[in-house]
C-alpha cells in the first residue's frame, strides 16, 4: 500500500485505509470507492494524500533517485538532509526523513 496525492486521485480508486481530519474525525472508511464528492471533501479539509489500494510505498532510496533527476528537487532533498545533520540512524528517523522527501516530491510533482 502507498500514499497518493489528493490531486492525483481518480474516481473508481479504492481507499486502503480510512482518512481522518486534524481532529481525528473519520472522513472516509477503508474500502470506499472514490467519487468526485469525496475528492471535494478531502480538498476542503486540506488533506494532502491518502492510502489507495494497489499503490506501492516508495522507499527512501527510490524517492531520492527520483529527486536526483531534477536539479530543483535535488536542492530540496539536500535542504532536508541538512535538517537531519548528525541524526541518529534509527528506523524512526529514517521514516521521518522518507516522509519529508516524499511529501516534497509530491508537492513539486503536483
Amino acid at each position, binding site marked *: 500500500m502507498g500514499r497518493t496525492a489528493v490531486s492525483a486521485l481518480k474516481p473508481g480508486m479504492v481507499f486502503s485505509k480510512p482518512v481522518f481530519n*486534524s481532529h*481525528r474525525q473519520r472522513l472516509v472508511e477503508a474500502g470506499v470507492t472514490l467519487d468526485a464528492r469525496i475528492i471535494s471533501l478531502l480538498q476542503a479539509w486540506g488533506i494532502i494524500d491518502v492510502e489507495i489500494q494497489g499503490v506501492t510505498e516508495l522507499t527512501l532510496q527510490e524517492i531520492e533517485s527520483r529527486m536526483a533527476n531534477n536539479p530543483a528537487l535535488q536542492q530540496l532533498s539536500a535542504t532536508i538532509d541538512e535538517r537531519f*545533520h548528525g541524526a541518529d540512524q534509527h528506523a524512526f*528517523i529514517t521514516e521521518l526523513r522518507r*516522509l519529508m522527501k516524499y511529501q516534497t516530491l509530491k508537492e513539486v510533482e503536483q
Partner: protein
Amino acid sequence: MIPELLTGEPPLVVERIHELPTLPEIYHRLVSTIDDPFSSIWEVERIIRQDPAMTARILRLVNSSLYGLSAPVSTVAQAVRTIGYDALKQLVLTTSVIDMFQPGQESPLSLKLYWEHCLGTAAAARQLALWVGEEHPEEFFVAGLLHDIGKLIHNQYAPEKFRAALALAASERLTLESAEHMVLGFSHNQTGGFLIHRWGLSPAIQRAVAYHHIPSVPDRLSPTLHEHIVHCADLISIALGLGFSGSYHFPPFVPLAWEVLRLSYGHLAEVVAATKREATQLMTVLFHSHA
C-alpha cells in the same frame, strides 16, 4: 517542584527570579472561574471580553479551519460551547505567552521563527496525543508550545551569552542545548522547567519542558507520556523545517519515547501531514496581525 530542578536550578533564573515574566491576570482569573463548579459560561465570556484583542484572536482561531466548524461563531460564549473549556484555556495561554515576549532590537533570536517551531511542536504533540487516545490533547499542545520557553528567557535576560551560544551552535554544528551548556553552564530546558513551575502549570507540563531532550534518564522518576510525546513532537517539527530551533545538529533521539506510544509509521505519516497543516494555519491566524 520536581526534585532534580531543586538541586539544579540554573543560576540565571535564581539571580533574576523577580524579573521573570508572569502569566497575565486574565489567564489566572479564567482558570479559577472555569475550575469553580458554580461559575457560568457568561462569567467566562465576561473575563475574555475585557481583552478585545484576545477576544478577536480567539474568535479568529475558532473560526479557522483548525476547528472545521460548519457555521462561524461570533461570540466567546458560542466559541466555548463549541470547543470546550480545555481548548479555551489552551487558546488563552497560547495568545498570552506569545504576547508576553516582544522582539528586542538587538534580540539574537527571531521570535517568529521561534514560535513557528514551537507551534509545530505543539500541533505534533496534540496529534500524537489524539492518536494515543489521550483524553486531554490540549495539555500536550501546551507542553509542546512551551517546551523551549527557556530560550526566550535566555534571549531576554542573557542576550549576549545566548547570542554566543547560538553562534557556537552554528560554527561547531551543535545542538543549541550543548552550546548553552558550554557558554551558560545550563540549558533552556532547565530554565524552562523552572519558569513553568513558577507559573503554576501542571507538573506534567513542567516535566515535559524540563526533560523533552532526555525523556528516559534512568536515575530519576519514570518519564511521563508528556515527556515522550514532546520529545517526538520536537523532532517532527524540526524535520518539517517549521521555523528554527537554534540547533545545527539534529537532537539525539530516544527510541523509547516513540516505542511507548505504540503507534505505527502509518500514524506517523498522518501526524506529519496534520502537523504541517495545523502549524501553517496557526501561524497565519496568530501572526497575521503582527506582520
